């Protein structure tokens, strides 16, 4: 459904047949906003982006799935609550149980919690305002399918933009996440939304399913990203710290025998 994005200079993408053979599906729900950006990010990282429509019941033989940001079904009931029951989500839940890498970004993270692929939930930001800022994160776990291209403890600057970004879970769940090393990203500096223990992203026990609130797909292309980077000084708009998320999953699938 969604072909490779039409406009853009993809000359920064690596020329590598093994990477190009990896098919990453991006699901579009009614109200999804960031599907094209996620597809661009996969393309720029060197992989092949495959558009998936929520009402289909076929994952089209993709090797990984990204559930992008936006406001699925307007977020009218709860963020992600209705999207969870889409036909394609059943397939995603099954594929995730079989080890397929799944990434949920922002609304995608909310959908993964509603689908019970990840614990906890997101509620309204503690300051009640929509947040939009370049956010510094710390990579707390680089052994997931989506973070292996980062050094452990590395920083990354990516945009944070949401209304319901406050991560909550009960103390037992939070202790489990911490104890098992499943906190994947934490906010650096001031907590932007009141998330418990500064959590910005988590994984499942098997490390193949990851959800995060900030948007790595908006920090992949020089000239169209944040104004800063955790990897030294960059020019305005030249932050591309989010790209390694997409390189990570391509690398781990190629290393795992997908070519």
């Amino acid at each position: 459904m969604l072909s490779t994005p039409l406009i853009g200079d993809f000359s920064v993408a690596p020329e590598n047949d093994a990477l190009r053979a990896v098919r990453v599906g991006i699901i579009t729900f009614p109200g999804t906003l960031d599907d094209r950006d996620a597809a661009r990010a996969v393309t720029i990282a060197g992989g092949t982006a495959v558009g998936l429509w929520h009402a289909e019941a076929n994952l089209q033989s993709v090797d990984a799935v990204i559930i992008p940001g936006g406001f699925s079904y307007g977020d009218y009931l709860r963020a992600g609550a209705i999207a969870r029951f889409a036909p394609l989500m059943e397939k995603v839940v099954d594929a995730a149980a079989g080890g397929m890498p799944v990434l949920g970004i922002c609304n995608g993270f909310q959908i993964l919690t509603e689908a019970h692929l990840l614990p906890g939930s997101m509620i309204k930001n503690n300051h009640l305002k929509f947040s939009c800022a370049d956010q510094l994160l710390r990579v707390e776990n680089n052994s997931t399918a989506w973070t292996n291209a980062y050094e452990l403890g590395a920083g990354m600057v990516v945009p944070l933009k949401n209304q319901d970004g406050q991560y909550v879970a009960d103390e037992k769940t939070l202790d489990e996440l911490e104890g098992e090393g499943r906190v994947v990203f934490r906010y650096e500096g001031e907590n932007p939304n009141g998330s418990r223990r500064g959590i910005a992203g988590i994984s499942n026990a098997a490390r193949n399913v990851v959800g995060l609130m900030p948007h790595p797909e908006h920090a992949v292309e020089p000239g169209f990203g944040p104004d800063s980077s955790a990897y030294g000084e960059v020019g305005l708009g030249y932050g591309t710290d989010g790209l390694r998320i997409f390189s990570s999953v391509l690398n781990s699938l190629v290393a795992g025998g997908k070519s």
Partner: protein
Amino acid sequence: MPRIVVDVMPKPEILDPQGKAIAGALPRLGLTGFAGVRQGKRFELTVDGDVTPEILEQARTAAATLLSNPVIEDVTRVEVIPEA
């Protein structure tokens, strides 16, 4: 048509930012008698004909699966409101 009312409230231990904002606004109106506000949701499911035990059970299932998220919310009421 009879209605089944489902009330959903944020769990007591979950911070309710909307409720807090409302609680902050009340004293500005001179209404100082309240110690706190919690904001919940009310759903009205209308039924053609009688509310059978099966339909009421369906409402309970809807309340527990789609209408509430047990991580952050409690279902505090599932009740038939007869036709006026």
